[in-house]
C-alpha cells in the first residue's frame, strides 16, 4: 500500500493524546509550587506519570479512530498489480459526434447517431463515457458517466447544427476529459464525415499517450453531388419614385454531373415570389436574376432557395434588403459653371452601395431645405454662403453633417465664419513644369484606407498645377500633402460633424485628378466618410454572436430599458440578455431572427438573416487515418500502447478511494466510543452514588 500524502502520518503523534488522557486524567495545565519534590521523586515513576489504563476498550477505540482518520488523510492506494488489474480494466470513453450541417447530407446524421448508440451499448459496466457533439464548437453531455440511459438520451435529443466542421475544439475537450480521468484505458470514438475543412483546427491537438482513437466514418464513398446557393447581390433602382431591388443569385454545382432545370425561387417574407429554372454545369456555377420588386419601408427578409438535394442546408440563402441606402449629396457651385461639377456628379452617379442622390445648386439658389435634406454638402469652388444659408450649413455641420470644401479660384470665405475651416488659405499658388503630385497620404484614414494595399490605386499619378495654400492650425489633421509639403487635404471636426478641405479643384481645371481611375473611389470614399455611412449587413453566419449595439439595423432598439424578445428560425422565443449578456444573441440556426421590443409594440422588428458557412458545403474528405494519426500520433485502432499508460498515484488513489472506507471506519469507531464511554460514565456514576 502506498500513500499519496504520507506526511499526514506525522499526525500519528496525535495518538498520544488519548493515551495521555487515559494515563493522566484531567491533568491541568496549571502548576502547583511545592517546597520539595524529594518525597514525590521517591515514589516509583509509574505511579506519578502513568496511571493504570482503566478502559482499554475506550483507549483502543479512540486510537483506532484517530489512526484511521490519519490514514484517510494520507490517501492510501494500492500499487499491487492484482488490485490494479481488478479495477483497471475500465475505460474512459469519449464519443465525438459531428453535428455540423454537412452531416445532414443524406442519412449521415442518423447513421452517426446509430454508431454512437452502438458505442454506448458496447461499453463495459465499469467504463465511463462522455458524449461530445461538435461543429465549429464542442459541447459535452454528462461527463464521465456510467449511466447508459443518460448517454442514449443525450444521443436521442441531439440535433443537427448549422455550424462548420472543426475537429480541434472537440479533440481539445476530449483531451481535457482524458487528462482528468483516473481510468487506465482511454478510448475515443470519432464519428464524422471527415471533411477536410476541419482538419486544420486539430493541428495542435494531441490526445494523451495511450489514447486509442477509433474513427467511424459516415461519409459516402462515392462522389457526392451538391448544389448550393453561393450568394446573392441586390441591384437597386428607382421606378415611379419607389425604390426597387433586383436580386441576382449565384449557384454552384460541386458535383460531377450537370444539373438541369434546377428550380430556384425567390422568397419574400416567406412567400415565393418567383421561381426560375437554372442549369448548372458540373463543378461550375451559374447565376439567376429575378424580376425586380419594390422595397418596403423596413428591411425585408429575402431568401433564394434552390430545389432541395441531399444537403438541403446550403440550398437556401437568406438576406435582408433595407430601403434607403442612398446618401443625399448637395453640391453648391458657382452659377454658370456647371462643368465644374461634371466629374463629381458622374463619379457619384455610379455608386450603388450606397447610391448617391446628388443635388446641384448654384450658390445663390441654395435653400435651407436643400441643406436640411442632404447628408453631405459640397462647396465646390465657392465660399460659405452668407446669411441664413451659411448659418444653416454651419448648424448642419455642427449637428453631424458632412461638409466638403473644395478650394478653387473663386472661393472667398467670410472672415467671421472661419470656424468651419481648419485654417486660412491664401491666393492660388502655381506649380511649375509638370506640376506637383501628392507626396504624403495618411492611409490610415478611412478615405485613403482603400488605397493602402498594393495595386489598389496610385495616388501619385495625378498632377497638380495649382492649389490654394492652406495655413492649418497646429491641431489640424492633414490627411494629404503635395510633394512640396503644402497641405492637399485636411480634416476639421466641428461639433458632431466633419469638414474636409481639398486645396485644389475636383475638375480638370487645376489638375488632372478627375481623369485618373482613382478619382471615382476617392470621391465616393470622401462622401461616404463625410456622410458617416455604414454599409448594411444583409446577413450573418451561423455561429456568430450578434452584438445588437454594433448592428446597424438595431440602432433604434432600446438595449438597456427595452424588453427585447428574439424569435429564432425555429419559432422559439427567448429574451435578449437572459444568458447574462445584454444585447448579445448567439446565432446558432440558419434562417431569420426577429428581434422585437415588446415595450414598444409599434416599432418595426429588427430582422437578421443568418446563413450557414458555405465552406462546409465542400464535402471533400480527409483520410480518417490521417486525422487519427495527427490526433494521437498512431494509426487508428492501435491498442498496443493502451497498457503503457501508467496511472499516476493520484489517479490510482482517486479510483480506489480507500480514504472513504477509512473515514467511515473512523466514524464508526467514534460512534462506538461515544456509546461505550457514555455507558462507562453511567456505570461509574452509579457506583459513586
Amino acid at each position, binding site marked *: 500500500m502506498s500513500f499519496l500524502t504520507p506526511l499526514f502520518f506525522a499526525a500519528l503523534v496525535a495518538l498520544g493524546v488519548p493515551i495521555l488522557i487515559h494515563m493522566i486524567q484531567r491533568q491541568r495545565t496549571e502548576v502547583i*509550587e511545592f517546597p520539595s519534590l524529594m518525597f514525590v521523586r521517591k515514589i516509583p515513576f509509574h505511579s506519578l506519570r502513568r496511571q493504570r489504563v482503566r478502559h482499554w476498550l475506550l483507549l483502543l477505540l479512540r486510537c483506532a479512530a484517530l489512526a484511521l482518520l490519519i490514514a484517510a488523510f494520507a490517501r492510501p492506494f494500492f500499487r499491487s498489480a492484482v488490485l490494479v488489474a481488478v479495477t483497471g480494466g475500465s475505460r474512459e470513453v469519449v464519443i465525438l459526434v459531428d453535428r455540423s450541417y454537412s452531416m445532414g447530407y443524406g442519412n449521415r446524421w442518423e447513421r452517426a447517431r446509430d454508431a454512437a448508440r452502438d458505442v454506448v451499448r458496447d461499453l463495459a459496466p465499469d467504463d465511463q463515457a462522455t458524449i461530445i457533439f461538435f461543429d465549429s464548437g464542442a459541447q459535452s453531455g454528462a461527463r464521465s458517466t456510467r449511466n447508459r440511459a443518460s448517454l442514449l438520451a443525450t444521443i436521442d435529443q441531439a440535433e443537427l447544427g448549422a455550424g462548420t466542421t472543426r475537429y480541434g475544439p472537440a479533440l481539445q475537450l476530449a483531451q481535457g476529459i482524458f487528462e482528468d480521468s483516473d481510468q487506465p484505458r482511454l478510448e475515443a470514438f470519432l464519428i464524422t464525415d471527415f471533411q477536410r475543412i476541419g482538419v486544420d483546427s486539430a493541428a495542435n491537438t494531441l490526445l494523451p499517450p495511450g489514447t486509442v482513437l477509433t474513427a467511424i466514418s459516415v461519409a459516402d464513398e462515392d462522389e457526392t453531388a451538391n448544389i448550393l446557393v453561393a450568394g446573392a447581390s441586390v441591384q437597386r433602382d428607382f421606378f415611379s419614385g419607389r425604390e426597387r431591388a433586383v436580386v441576382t443569385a449565384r449557384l454552384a454545382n460541386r458535383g460531377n454531373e450537370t444539373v438541369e432545370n434546377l428550380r430556384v425561387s425567390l422568397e419574400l417574407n416567406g412567400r415565393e415570389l418567383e421561381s426560375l429554372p437554372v442549369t448548372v454545369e458540373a463543378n461550375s456555377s451559374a447565376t439567376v436574376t429575378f424580376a425586380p420588386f419594390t422595397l418596403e419601408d423596413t428591411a425585408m427578409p429575402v431568401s433564394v432557395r434552390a430545389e432541395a438535394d441531399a444537403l438541403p442546408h446550403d440550398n437556401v440563402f437568406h438576406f435582408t434588403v433595407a430601403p434607403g441606402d442612398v446618401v443625399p449629396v448637395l453640391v453648391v457651385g458657382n452659377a454658370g459653371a456647371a462643368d465644374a461639377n461634371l466629374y463629381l456628379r458622374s463619379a457619384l452617379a455610379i455608386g450603388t452601395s450606397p447610391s448617391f442622390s446628388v443635388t446641384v445648386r448654384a450658390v445663390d439658389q441654395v435653400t435651407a431645405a436643400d441643406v436640411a435634406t442632404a447628408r453631405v454638402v459640397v462647396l465646390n469652388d465657392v465660399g460659405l454662403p452668407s446669411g441664413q444659408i451659411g448659418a444653416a450649413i454651419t448648424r448642419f455641420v455642427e449637428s453631424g453633417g458632412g461638409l466638403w470644401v473644395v478650394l478653387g479660384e473663386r472661393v472667398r470665405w467670410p472672415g467671421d465664419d472661419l470656424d468651419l475651416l481648419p485654417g486660412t488659405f491664401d491666393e492660388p499658388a502655381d506649380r511649375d513644369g509638370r506640376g506637383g503630385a501628392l507626396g504624403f497620404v495618411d492611409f490610415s484614414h478611412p478615405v485613403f484606407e482603400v488605397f493602402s494595399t498594393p495595386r489598389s490605386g496610385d495616388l501619385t499619378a495625378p498632377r497638380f498645377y495649382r492649389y490654394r495654400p492652406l495655413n492649418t492650425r497646429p491641431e489640424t489633421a492633414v490627411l494629404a500633402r503635395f510633394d512640396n509639403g503644402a497641405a492637399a487635404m485636411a480634416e476639421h471636426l466641428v461639433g458632431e460633424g466633419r469638414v474636409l478641405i481639398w486645396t485644389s479643384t475636383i475638375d480638370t481645371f487645376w489638375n488632372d485628378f478627375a481623369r485618373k481611375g482613382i478619382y471615382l473611389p476617392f470621391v465616393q470614399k470622401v462622401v461616404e466618410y463625410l456622410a458617416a455611412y455604414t454599409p448594411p449587413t444583409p446577413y450573418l453566419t451561423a455561429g456568430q454572436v450578434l452584438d445588437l449595439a454594433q448592428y446597424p439595423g438595431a440602432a433604434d432598439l432600446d438595449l438597456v430599458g427595452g424588453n427585447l424578445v428574439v424569435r429564432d428560425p425555429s419559432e422559439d422565443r427567448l429574451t435578449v440578455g437572459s444568458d447574462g449578456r445584454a444585447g448579445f444573441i448567439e446565432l446558432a440556426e440558419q434562417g431569420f431572427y426577429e428581434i422585437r421590443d415588446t415595450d414598444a409594440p409599434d416599432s418595426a422588428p429588427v430582422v437578421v438573416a443568418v446563413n450557414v458557412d458555405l465552406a462546409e458545403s465542400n464535402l471533400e474528405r480527409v483520410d480518417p487515418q490521417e486525422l487519427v494519426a495527427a490526433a494521437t500520433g498512431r494509426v487508428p485502432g492501435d491498442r498496443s500502447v493502451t497498457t503503457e499508460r501508467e496511472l499516476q498515484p493520484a489517479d490510482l488513489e482517486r479510483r480506489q478511494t480507500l480514504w472513504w472506507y477509512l473515514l467511515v471506519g473512523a466514524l464508526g469507531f467514534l460512534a462506538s466510543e461515544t456509546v461505550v464511554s457514555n455507558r462507562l460514565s453511567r456505570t461509574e456514576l452509579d457506583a459513586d452514588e
Partner: protein
Amino acid sequence: MHRWPNATAITNGATQPMTTVATPSHGARFIDPQILARIGNLELVARWVVEGFITGLHKAPYLGVSIDFAEHRAYMPGDDIRRVDWRLYARTDRFYVKQFEADTNTNFSVLFDVSKTMSFGSRGVTKLDYGRFLAACLCYISTKQRDRVGIVTFDDDIVERVPPSAKHFDVTMHTLDQMDPGRPGALGPPLHKATEFFKRRSILAIISDFYDEPEKILDAVKPLRFAGSDVIMFHVLDPAEVDFPYDDSTSFQDLETGRKIPVVPDKLRDQYRQLVQDHIRALTELCSQNRIDYAFLNTSVPLDHALFKYLTMRHKLTKAR
C-alpha cells in the same frame, strides 16, 4: 503537673507514635499562627505568646530552676572558695561547695534555615513565618533568663550571623524580621561552617524543614554537639507537606530546583504520607541515638505547643545536669 497527652511529638529518645497535632488539655492559651502573622512586631509577638504561655503555666515546676540550689559536694582543690558553704563548714567542719541547678547564663543561638522551601505556606502562614515566631519566642524566653541570644541564618551558606550576647536581642529580632528566603538550601556546608561559631557550650535551636536524607541531616547537625552544645532540631512543615491534600492531576514544581513533575495526587497520596512519616520517624530515631532533641512542628499547630516542647527539653537538660 500538667500532662500533654498528645505532645508525644517531642521526642527525646522516645519511641511513641508520631502525632502531628498536639492538643493541650487546658491551662494554655493557644494562639493561631495566622493571627500572629498579622502582628508585625516580633518582640510583641514573642512577649504576647511567652507571657501568656507562662501565665498558663504558673504552677509548672520549670520556672526558676536555673537559680535554685541543687546540692552540696565536697570541696576539691581548684574550686572557687567563694562557693564554699561556710554555714555548713561551721556545722560539719568540712568544706562543701554549693551547686545550683543550672547555669542559666548560657548562650542561646537560633540556626534558622532561610532556604526557598521555607517560604511555602498553604494556610496563610509560611514555614518561615512560623519559624520566625518560634525563634522570637525562644529568644524572648532566653533573654528573660538572662541568657545570651544570637542567630545564624543560612540557606546553602551562612546568610547572616548575630553572635550570642545579652545585648543582641533587638538585633536578633531585627534579623528575624528581615529574613528573606530565596535561594536553594543545604544543611551540610552552612552548619559545618557554623560549628566554628560555637566554641563555647551553647543551646542551639535549629529551625528548618529538613528536606534531606536523615543521615545527611544528622551528619550536618552532629558537629554542633562536639563543643558540648545542646542541639534542638525544630522540624517545621506545612500541613500540605504532611497530608498532601491535592486532588487534581497536575504538575508540581519544586520551589528550589524549578523542576516540574506531573503528578496524580490521588494515586500517590498514601505513599507520600508514608514517606513523610518515615522521614520523621527516621529523624526521631537518629536524633535520639545522637542525643539531639528533635521536635516536629506543624504550622497549623499553635505556637504555644512548640514553646512547651522547648521548655520541656530545657527542663530535661537541667535534670540531666
